[in-house]
């Protein structure tokens, strides 16, 4: 293996890649422009929807069919606008009322609340009604106890308090960890797709491969140079995605008006140390992705054929990437052996602050082994004239 030859191939591939519009879009524009825009838009939209639902719940009337005056008074006291309707369910479904309240006589009498849970305004209105009725129920119980000479303290023989000891960082890490790994891994494979096709099937389609193969560069040197370039493209995509997500997530708390959302955004654990750990995890994965996609795309004779081979692979990546981010899985050495899943799980673990050295080492080691195996397959394919000159 001659370093100057590998270096020449690597430099040429990188120069070729940065001048390719398709590669620039998938490698740079998507992580740097599309992702932050989408994230910002999603946060603003969620915040706006929540705000609208709360406002509408306050202003939109609640349909009632109530005979007991105290219930009506309790709802009015809670500043809920009331309107008499015959068909409460129909009114809620047709959105002429935010929620419905019906008193059904009996012992005890039943106060039925109707809500359309698919509509945030209806849910919020039903919650307000429920709270007002709970207050009324408690006031009545207290009054009865008082009339019977029993102290109100019998209602609270003891207090139950639940404290979340996870802390804001851990909670935030859990929520964002499930998303970040998935987005990163998906964009890594999608970002590497065009560069890899360009340097394999693209080279065949443009008929430049014969000139390269007839040069003194060995097949292995060509594969190493090209794979390093593909790996760089994938890793650059990952780093740009990571950087842009850190920037946009950290910045997007300003876009949200909800205090909970603002706190969640503010406490995302994406400090330099965490980001570095995530970047380290992605190195062997980028090597693996490059060699795997290279082996597959090499079969194709044209750009179009290459894209049709690699697009399903990008979809295949979605499943382990998504599952790895789920909180239900307890990291174990065995699970650390599953490619892509292990990296996604590790990213979530790093964000939550729950990664053991053993699991980290196994994940890194497994992905290095997979990268080496994929590289060996890629080299073997590149030495196969039936693959290179497939007609």
């Amino acid at each position, binding site marked *: 293996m001659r370093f100057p*030859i590998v270096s020449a191939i690597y430099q040429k591939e990188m120069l070729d890649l940065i001048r390719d519009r398709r590669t620039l879009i998938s490698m740079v524009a998507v992580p740097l422009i599309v992702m932050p825009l989408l994230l910002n838009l999603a946060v603003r939209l969620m915040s706006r929807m929540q705000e609208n639902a709360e406002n509408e719940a306050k202003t939109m009337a609640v349909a009632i069919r109530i005979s007991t005056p105290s219930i009506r008074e309790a709802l009015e006291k809670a500043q809920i606008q009331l309107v008499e309707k015959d068909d409460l369910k129909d009114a809620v479904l047709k959105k002429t009322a935010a929620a419905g309240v019906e008193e059904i006589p009996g012992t005890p009498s039943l106060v039925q609340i109707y809500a359309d849970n698919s509509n945030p305004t209806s849910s919020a209105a039903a919650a307000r009604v429920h709270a007002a009725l709970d207050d009324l129920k408690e006031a009545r119980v207290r009054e009865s106890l008082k009339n019977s000479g029993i102290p109100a303290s019998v209602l609270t023989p003891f207090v139950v308090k639940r404290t979340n000891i996870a802390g804001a960082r851990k909670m935030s890490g859990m929520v964002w960890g499930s998303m970040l790994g998935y987005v990163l891994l998906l964009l890594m494979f999608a970002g590497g797709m065009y560069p890899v096709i360009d340097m394999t099937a693209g080279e065949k389609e443009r008929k430049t491969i*014969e*000139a390269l193969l007839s040069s003194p560069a060995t097949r292995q040197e060509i594969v190493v140079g090209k794979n390093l370039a593909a790996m760089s493209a994938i890793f650059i995509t990952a780093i740009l995605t990571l950087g842009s997500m850190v920037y946009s997530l950290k910045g997007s708390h300003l876009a949200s008006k909800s205090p909970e959302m603002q706190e969640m955004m503010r406490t995302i654990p994406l400090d330099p140390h965490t980001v570095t750990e995530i970047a380290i995890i992605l190195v062997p994965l980028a090597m693996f992705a490059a060699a795997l996609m290279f082996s597959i795309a090499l079969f194709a004779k044209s750009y179009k054929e290459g894209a049709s081979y690699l697009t399903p692979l990008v979809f295949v990546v979605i499943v382990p990437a998504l599952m790895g981010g789920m909180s239900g899985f307890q990291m174990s050495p065995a699970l650390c052996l599953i490619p892509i899943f292990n990296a996604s799980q590790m990213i979530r673990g790093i964000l939550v602050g729950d990664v053991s050295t053993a699991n980290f080492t196994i994940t890194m080691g497994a992905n290095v082994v997979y990268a080496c195996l994929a590289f060996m397959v890629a080299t073997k394919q590149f030495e196969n004239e039936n693959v290179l000159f497939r007609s």
Partner: protein
Amino acid sequence: MIQVRGLSKTFSDSKRGTRLAVDNVSFDVRAGEVFGLLGPNGAGKTTTLRMLATLLKPSSGTAALNGFDIVREPQKVREQIGFLSGDMGQYGRLTPLEILNFFGKLYGMDAARRASRIDALMTMLDMKSFAGVRTDKLSTGMKQKTAIARTMLHDPPVLILDEPTSGLDVPTARAIETAIVDARKAGKCVLYSTHVMEEAEYLCDRIGVISGGKLRMVGTMDELRAATGKQRLREIFLDLLGLEQ
């Protein structure tokens, strides 16, 4: 310079089955000689040249180029040759200068030697006006000149040219023919395949006619005329293919 001995190549695929593309071909090409390989489409010319350029491995037989065996020493062989095919493409996003520098590095040329060879070839092929323009913006002729410069960049003793003037206009084809004549004068060994009879008659010292994977006859124009009784290469070619009445 080139010794080809019993070279054969078999291809197998599920659609067409097994097919013998090159069948026991043997010939020699000396230094300072242009050897033309003539044959109809599918005769085995390109496969033969690809084997000699070590792109394909022979099924049997072997060849030596400038003393290096194509099966045992493919890398050494590639250092001795400049290989050009008429339908070879170019890296469209790179300029001719960048392409030549890239291949110069692959041939192990240092920066000073690269610079002087690139300058000489660009002057010879009149390429300086488009040296810094991206190749995908260039005309077919300019691209082919870049390909010729790339083939001759490392000053190889052996040139393998597979229909290098295919699809070119007359001035560009002429420039390539001149480059071949100059290479012969410089003592290079040139193996050349073409469809154009006039070109072969004008350029080649000896001609080999290949058909159905077999080399039918090898000789100078005079030897071919004597063997077939025909005068023009077109008639000789058709006669050897059994198509001349």
